[in-house]
């Protein structure tokens, strides 16, 4: 699946963002195609959150171009981004824990019946639709009225994804959806990422885990300290290279030396890390974190 069509669904070119004297992002470019998953990978503090906040309308970008379906855009509020078809599922999922599942599903976009002062919530319809939409995503809820806080992390994630899909998002941004989940739950969420792609959405999948990103991604953009380490189509990069770029092979080696000096169990771990770093076989310049020449 290639994303190199005439006008990708969403594209950024040389985007940057500055907070006071802190350069949070510099010269970031990538594209998101329809029915494609673009993974944004990076460690803590790499600038992933800042980037999605630009997409989501929380921040404005300071430089570069932000194109939605070929048109220049700049959102001043999350609402604007949402209206333009960019839905964001945050790490905190933007759910209100004490509220029932169906109320969360429709929060901010409630269905109403009646007009003027007697316009009221169409609670029956909302319950029915929420239940059906969640079922379509493969979540069979015991009770649509239960507070969303009683669902598991994976289920909550899926409610948030189902909500975005139902409200006609064209671009779905997932902020580390698998970060706080166990292996099985993470697998379930990845399944929904693929489902969203099959429904024709462009998905931006933010993660620090290349093992989660590689199976579902069509395109990979790596961030490090606010700069891009590269933007690759799936055909241009292997899982091992991706893991190597993410982990930073040289850093792994340094860590291995450090642990070796500790002796005992630490030394054992150090050997494993070293072996892994060798297996990755990545160009040391990139792995050490020096940004590639522009």
């Amino acid at each position, binding site marked *: 699946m290639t994303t190199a069509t005439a006008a990708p669904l969403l594209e950024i070119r040389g985007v940057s963002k500055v907070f006071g004297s802190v350069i949070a992002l510099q010269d970031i470019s990538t594209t998101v195609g329809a029915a494609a998953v673009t993974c944004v990978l990076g460690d803590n503090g790499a600038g992933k959150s800042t980037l999605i906040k630009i997409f989501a309308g929380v921040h404005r970008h300071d430089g570069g171009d932000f194109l939605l379906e070929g048109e220049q855009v700049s959102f001043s509020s999350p*609402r604007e981004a949402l209206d333009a078809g960019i839905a964001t599922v945050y790490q905190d999922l933007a759910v*209100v824990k*004490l509220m029932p599942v169906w*109320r969360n599903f429709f*929060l*901010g976009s409630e269905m109403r019946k009646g007009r003027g002062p007697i316009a009221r919530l169409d609670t029956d319809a909302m319950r029915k639709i929420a239940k059906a939409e969640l079922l379509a995503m493969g979540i069979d809820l015991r009770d649509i009225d239960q507070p969303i806080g*009683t669902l598991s992390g994976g289920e909550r994630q899926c409610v948030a994804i189902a909500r975005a899909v139902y409200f006609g998002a064209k671009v779905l941004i997932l902020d580390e959806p698998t970060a706080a989940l166990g292996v099985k739950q993470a697998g379930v969420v990845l399944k929904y990422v693929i489902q969203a792609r099959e429904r024709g959405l462009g998905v931006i999948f933010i993660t620090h885990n290349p093992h989660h990103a590689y199976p579902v991604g069509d395109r990979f953009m790596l961030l490090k300290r606010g700069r891009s380490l590269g933007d690759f189509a799936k055909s241009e990069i292997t899982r091992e290279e991706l893991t190597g770029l993410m982990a930073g092979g040289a850093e792994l080696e340094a860590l291995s030396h450090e642990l070796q000096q500790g002796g005992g169990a630490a030394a054992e771990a150090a050997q494993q890390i070293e072996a892994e770093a060798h297996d990755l076989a990545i160009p040391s310049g990139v792995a050490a974190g020096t940004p590639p020449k522009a």
Partner: protein
Amino acid sequence: MTTTLSPPTPEADERVARVGLLRRLVLRPEIGSLIGAVILFVLFAVSSTQFYSLAGISNWLDPASLFGIMAVAVAMLMIGGHFDLSAGVLTGTAGLATAVMTTQWGLNIWAALLVSLVLCLGIGFVNGYLVTRTGLPSFIITLATFLMLQGLNLAVTKLITGTVSVGGMAQVPFYDTVRPLFASRINVFGVDFKIQILWWVLVVAIGAWVLAKTRFGNWTFAVGGDPVASRNIGVPAARTTITLFMAVGACAWLVGTLKLMEQTSVQTNQGFGEELIYIVAAVIGGCLLTGGYGSVIGAAIGALIFGMTSQGIVYAGLDSDWFKFFLGAMLLLAVLANQYVRRYAERSGK
């Protein structure tokens, strides 16, 4: 939102049946206050036959209704995640403004009522705007407005009238056109009930409907439950918060007007100290101090408990000096009961 006694219908999920009626009932925020109110009613009724006579009921509905109107607005604000400490003295500001404009400046009484309504809404707006704009705790912001209003009520009134009260509303032209709406009596089997009770019922009904059935109510729960999440999902959080503060202003105007028209005079210290009782009523009614959960019907029952206790102590032949002690004890009981209920709900929720 309703609890039905009927067995689950065939198409209902079979796993839902495990959630018993008891748990459903217990999960309602107002259930604790309802049980408390029933127990109190029985206790007072046993100790005095006067308590449940029509005259007695009229007597304790009287304070309950005024506190109840405010408790509804304050409960909604608390569900929305905020406090308003200025709500009590704002009832005084409303009454004083109307009284000064009519008796001192000769303004038409209806026009004066309208101006003081706008004033109360405006103060509510300022509270809400400052809270949303600065992100400071509403406790601090409204503590400031509470003190400023308290000072203004006294200073401005003394400046204009030279005394600490404004009277003579009965002599104001067209007072008799306003009176039926705010200070009339309804005769039920030979006993007079004040019209403010009907206002209370109306405010409770509107509040309950808005919370359960409207988009604004949904936003209120959301903003109180998780302000950041609701903003991210597209809820106009600031607008919701400001509107809730303005609703408190509107209710304060209503209560101030009801008192003014009933007593035909107003003291500069009116409403001082009552702001805490509104919060007590809301908390007894099941509102969480942290927001996102609660009920206006519960708050109304909380106000009812307040009214019953204040009069019931007298009927029971106890010294009314004990009243505040009982109120405090009930608040403690209510908070403990609510906490226990919530844990029970969470435990069996999985």
